[in-house]
């Protein structure tokens, strides 16, 4: 897989095992998956089936026990922590199950925060965030 290909994320024979006192749990077993640019993929499964593990592996938040995870043409283990952080800020988007908005921040500050992580200045982040909020009619909140 390379950077120019249409695929943005790929899992090849990935297994993820969580060690524990009672012998551990296998969350994912020998999974292969590929997501291409512009695709919309819905991941469905019962609680405990490994959806979250799958997504955290794709985001480079943890490493697989075996197998390979590619993100934008490069194996996640080849990225440094700083590069992965930058990737999460610039090229990946998260919507958490329970939103996880920061209570201590206002609505616009919550939106601005991610733009700031991506390197935008305060003013630029504010303007962009206002624009996003306007799209949802939430700029007055």
């Amino acid at each position: 897989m390379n950077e120019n290909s249409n695929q943005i994320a790929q899992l090849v024979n990935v297994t993820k095992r969580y060690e524990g006192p009672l012998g551990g749990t296998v969350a994912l077993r020998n999974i292969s998956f590929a997501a291409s640019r512009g695709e919309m993929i819905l991941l469905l499964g019962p609680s405990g089936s490994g959806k979250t593990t799958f997504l955290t592996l794709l985001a480079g938040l943890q490493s697989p026990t075996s197998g390979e995870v590619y993100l934008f043409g490069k194996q996640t283990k080849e990225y440094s922590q700083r590069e992965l952080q930058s990737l999460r800020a610039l090229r990946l988007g998260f919507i958490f199950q329970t939103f996880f908005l920061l209570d201590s921040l206002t609505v616009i500050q919550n939106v601005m925060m991610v733009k700031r992580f991506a390197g935008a200045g305060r003013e630029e982040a504010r303007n962009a965030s206002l624009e996003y909020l306007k799209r949802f009619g939430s700029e007055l909140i």
Partner: protein
Amino acid sequence: MFVIQYAFISLDEAHKIIGFKNVVSCYQVHTIPGSNLGKIKSDIYSGLKNIVIFDKATFIKNNIQEMESGIIPLLFIVTLISAIVLTAILSLILSVSVLEKRNDFAIMKALGSPRGFISGLVVRLSVILSLTGLAFALVLFFPMVWIVERISPEVSAKTSVFQILVVSSGVMIISLISSVLPNRRIRKIYPLEVFM
């Protein structure tokens, strides 16, 4: 307090403590400019036994020596202990704040917060707390000096801008040191915690 030359006490208070009237530890003698100091000294010696006379320069030198060997090291130790305690308290407050916001910091890390971003927040909080404390101290300092000088006129609490700057710099250093431990805690927060 009577063994040394330098004592933070007024004569009236000394009389109250000792319980004897008309007993003094020292007299300050003002001379007319151009007087023969040697003659004045010998006249005093001839009239009063078991006393020691110092001229102004020697008296000031002795006092400075006394302060440098006795009071200043003591004040330095008290200041040092206060600084250590302040650092510990501030560090504890910030650490508790980090623990309370652990989940928020994990979210920020998951969303791609740069390494220095969260640390910067903690340092900023530490500096704000320290500056607020400093501002309160400065506001209270001058009325306190005024009160102390009214209660104990012999105590002079003169302060220079330089001294205030030194104290302010010290407080800033304390605020930076205090943020080291909380920042180490932040390093141990993993973005994956958000999903657990």
